[in-house]
């Protein structure tokens, strides 16, 4: 086993950690907002970016979307899709916070409940953006390395499953790029044995 392949064999475990960490982030974000829809709507409104109907849709829908993401990430379904949606949301949040900052608003991001107008001296835009960039990095990791251990999607075998489906390494989306050589070795052996 070469050093490179040893590192590669660790990737799915790292992806599992990233997946669970993001699940915790989304779960906490959603649960802390879902109980008080009015406060969430106010938090969204305080950004002064969206028209009122969109503010309501966002304030009411976002917490549920976040909880949905958390549950799906926890189980590990379509990890690359979830990573992409997560990344899009984090980019949107970063843009929102940065724009509030640039426009001189004094708001709390409302990322984990609360939110809305606050004392101008109490804004934490830098911390909020750094934190979101960290989350964005985890989401990006899942886009690049979606295959993870303990993921439900690797248990959903295609019809007439082949030899290597139960291999925990075989997450959903091996688009080929990452582990071509190792992959074709297993595949060939698997196919030959049949």
């Amino acid at each position, binding site marked *: 086993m070469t050093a490179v392949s040893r590192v590669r064999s660790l990737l799915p475990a790292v992806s599992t950690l990233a997946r669970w960490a993001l699940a915790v982030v989304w779960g906490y974000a959603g649960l802390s907002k*879902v109980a008080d*829809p*009015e*406060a969430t*709507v*106010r938090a969204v*409104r*305080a950004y*002064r970016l969206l028209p*009122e109907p969109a503010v*309501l*849709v966002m*304030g*009411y*829908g*976002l*917490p*549920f*979307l976040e*909880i*949905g*993401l958390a549950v*799906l990430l926890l189980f590990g*379904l*379509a990890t*690359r*899709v*979830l990573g992409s*949606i997560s990344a899009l949301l984090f980019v949107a949040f970063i843009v929102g916070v940065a724009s509030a900052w640039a426009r001189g*608003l*004094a*708001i709390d991001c409302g990322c984990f409940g609360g939110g*809305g*107008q*606050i*004392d*101008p001296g109490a804004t934490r835009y830098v911390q909020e953006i750094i934190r979101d960039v960290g989350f964005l990095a985890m989401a990006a990791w899942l886009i690049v390395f979606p295959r993870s251990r303990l993921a439900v*999607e690797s248990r*959903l075998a*295609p*019809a*007439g499953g*082949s030899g290597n489906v139960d291999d925990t390494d075989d997450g*959903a*989306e091996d688009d*080929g790029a990452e582990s*071509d*050589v190792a992959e*074709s070795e297993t*595949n*060939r052996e698997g*196919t*030959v044995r*049949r």
Partner: protein
Amino acid sequence: MSKTSKAPKNDRQRRIEEARRRQAAQERRRRLIIGGAVLAVLVVVAVIGIVVQSNRSGSAKSTASTRPSGVLANGAIPMGAAVSAGQTAPTLDIFEDFQCPYCGQLEQGSGADLQQLATAGSVQLRYHLLSFIGLDSVRAANAAGCAVDVGAFAPYHAKLYANQPKENTNGYSTDNLLKWGAEVGLTTPAFTDCVRTSRYQGWVKQVQDQSSKDGIVQTPTLLLNGKPVDNAITLQPAQLKAAILAAKGG
């Protein structure tokens, strides 16, 4: 897929390639189905959320019909010169949260001046009691609404600010709100009951939502004849008083 570029050497290799292609196609299909299902689930969940949450806040709004006597249509508590046609006294909208420290400073510095000006008919004050800082704010605003009903808003308002607790430390507890009420003579069962049952919760929500929609993003915010008062003036009692006296009714 690195091997697919090479031409298969024999039948066995071709079969292997064929099997691998089939497997890859299957894999793609499977991935598409899971991805689509996941997206569909998320959309459905979000839509359910929107419906559930808008129903919840809808039921909160229906109780907004219960509001303190004499409050304006937008929920503000008027005080001082009556506003009517031909009226020359300016209006001063005050957006404040009982828990906001700067609102406490405003009250400390200008509270007495404002009351005096209002009593003299030189200004109409319109108090918008916001409650975004926390549950203490909601309870305090509700209790202040209860005080409006018995014509004791001004002294009770001053009393609450004089005892302003640290934010969200349960300082505006029901017991404290009743105790401070008693200290300004609010001992009627009507007041006590109103505070205990949070009778004006719907109104408190309405005031908060309205001001949020109107773009009030910080407290205290003062609007003199509808125009924002500079932050630098808001907390300078002498300048604020001068600005009010200089303003003509809108």
